[in-house]
């Protein structure tokens, strides 16, 4: 069985990988300097020119990019080529005001699909396989990313997109799906639905699943593996750098190999921005080495993780990253949607409430529950129950519109939100997403 999609690069000696990276970074910095005035300006402010970048060791001289830059530069400010050379956009789940639109040339898409193809082959995929992609298609990178990779490997691709579980199961059973691609929570849900319909794990032809786009635990992995009778592989990525496939798990299931020929990874101290030594926990920063249309240098992912450079028994030589262990900002990922507590505050103030609230996240049947407790003030409280309940519903609607995901709102009495050392506790996350 084919073990690697591109063995010559996936198992290349470290020196070879470094050589590739050194060559690419010099070219890429020049490309950005020449084509992205926004970043050129940041470099000038830092007193760096392309001549200062001779190898990946010099990357630390470059300025960081953050989500705030992406917002400031929206939509074309970080574009690295003429629009006429671009063939597609993808976008993040789109919480208001923080939408990221990433551009792709055909080459960008081609390299991105190579990355997801590597992930599929690492999960055991060959041209014999039937790959069911039930990540969302459309602006979300999940569907298109895995779809493209599946084509490259030569698998029979079922472009299901997300939802309609009954149909998913019907296609899965009728066409003998062997590899499932979706979010881990949806995989768990499909597992439960199969059991409810009386199917046993051995009744399906599935052998592997490639699951990502949201945090999940080892415990959840074991659950999914058991309920579907498969081996479950993690995949990581972000729209800013391309999409899923920036890194992926091999059969060792012990960290995700970063596609280092396309992405240079650093771990920094989120406070000081200093690069941390290997093995230390910090914020993951990516530099795209090949992207033409959306060439981000030193993009701060805000994901906290650890890099592992010890050789992997799978034969791949690319560095492994741990599952993200948290975030260096206050962003929450709820059912795959990015939510910032400040957005909730904005809605409350706009609707005339005090900004006293608490977000409680938990998991039921492997799906996130999202509850927002809001202190009622004298201006809102009514002796009429119906009016209070309409307020609750109204707030739910306003929050759903802002966040793109609907929380359950609970009105509570003033001064009842838990405070620790006088400061209100804004988020209680009981999901235990990090082992």
């Amino acid at each position, binding site marked *: 069985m084919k073990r690697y999609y591109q063995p010559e690069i996936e198992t290349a000696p470290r020196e070879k990988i470094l050589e590739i990276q050194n060559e690419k970074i010099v070219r890429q910095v020049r490309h950005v300097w020449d084509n992205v005035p926004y970043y050129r300006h940041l470099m000038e402010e830092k007193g760096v020119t392309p001549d200062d970048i001779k190898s990946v060791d010099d990357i630390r001289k470059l300025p960081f990019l953050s989500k705030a830059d992406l917002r400031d530069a929206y939509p074309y400010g970080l574009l690295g080529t003429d629009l006429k050379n671009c063939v597609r956009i993808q976008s993040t789940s789109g919480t208001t005001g923080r939408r990221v639109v990433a551009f792709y040339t055909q080459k960008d898409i081609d390299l991105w699909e190579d990355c997801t193809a590597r992930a599929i082959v690492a999960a055991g995929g060959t041209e014999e396989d039937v790959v069911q992609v039930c990540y969302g298609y459309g602006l979300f990178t999940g569907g298109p990313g895995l779809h493209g990779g599946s084509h490259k490997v030569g698998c029979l691709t079922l472009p299901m997109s997300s939802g309609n579980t009954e149909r998913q199961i019907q296609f899965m059973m009728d066409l003998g799906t062997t590899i499932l691609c979706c979010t881990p929570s949806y995989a768990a849900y499909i597992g439960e639905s199969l059991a409810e319909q009386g199917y046993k794990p051995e009744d399906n032809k599935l052998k592997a699943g490639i699951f990502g786009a949201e945090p999940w635990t080892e415990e959840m992995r074991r659950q999914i593996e058991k309920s579907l009778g498969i081996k479950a592989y993690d995949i990581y990525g972000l729209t800013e750098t391309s999409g899923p496939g920036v890194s992926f798990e091999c059969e060792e299931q012990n960290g995700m190999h970063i596609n280092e020929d396309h992405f240079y990874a650093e771990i920094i101290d989120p406070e000081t921005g200093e690069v941390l030594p290997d093995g230390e926990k910090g914020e993951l920063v990516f530099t795209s080495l090949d992207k033409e249309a959306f060439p981000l240098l030193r993009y701060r992912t805000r994901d906290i993780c650890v890099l592992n450079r010890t050789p992997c028994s799978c034969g791949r030589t690319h560095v492994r990253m741990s599952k993200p262990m948290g975030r260096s900002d206050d962003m929450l990922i709820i059912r795959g949607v990015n939510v910032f507590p400040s957005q909730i505050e904005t809605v409350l103030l706009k609707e005339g409430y005090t900004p006293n609230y608490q977000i409680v996240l938990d998991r039921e049947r492997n799906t996130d529950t999202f509850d927002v407790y809001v202190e009622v003030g004298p201006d809102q409280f009514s002796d009429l129950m119906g009016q209070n309940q309409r307020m609750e519903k109204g707030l739910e609607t306003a929050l759903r519109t802002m966040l793109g995901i609907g929380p359950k709102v609970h*009105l509570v009495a003033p001064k009842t939100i838990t405070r620790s050392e006088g400061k209100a506790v804004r988020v209680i996350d009981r999901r235990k997403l990090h082992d």
Partner: protein
Amino acid sequence: MAITQISLFLMNQPGQLVDAVEAISANGANIRAMSIAEANDFGILRAIVTDTDHIIRQLKDQFLITKTEVVAARMGDQSGSLLPILKTLNEANINIEYMYAFTGTGPDEAYVVLRVNDIITAEAVLNASGIQTLTDTSLKI
């Protein structure tokens, strides 16, 4: 004339009602009538108390409290007493949001507290039908 009802926002959990009633009694007021409406997370305690303004002043830092004008209509304490009140309001096309009742101190003396959409018309039609309604002053006696 109407009477003033207080409404307290309470969490739907043990201990809340004790706290509220304790606070009312600690301030020397008598609860003449009360009812509770409940939702999933919270409830509303509605009460007719003696010395309403004093209670609101004393409780407003501890509780979310609001006052509402309601009609307290006198009726007899026997079968069928409520009916004329409801019929009168119905004929005047008055909608009742909620209601609760309490008995008076005298024999055959009961009152129904009515939260209606048009309090002035409600009282007028009730009084015109010979149904007596209470005022805050009459309630204190």
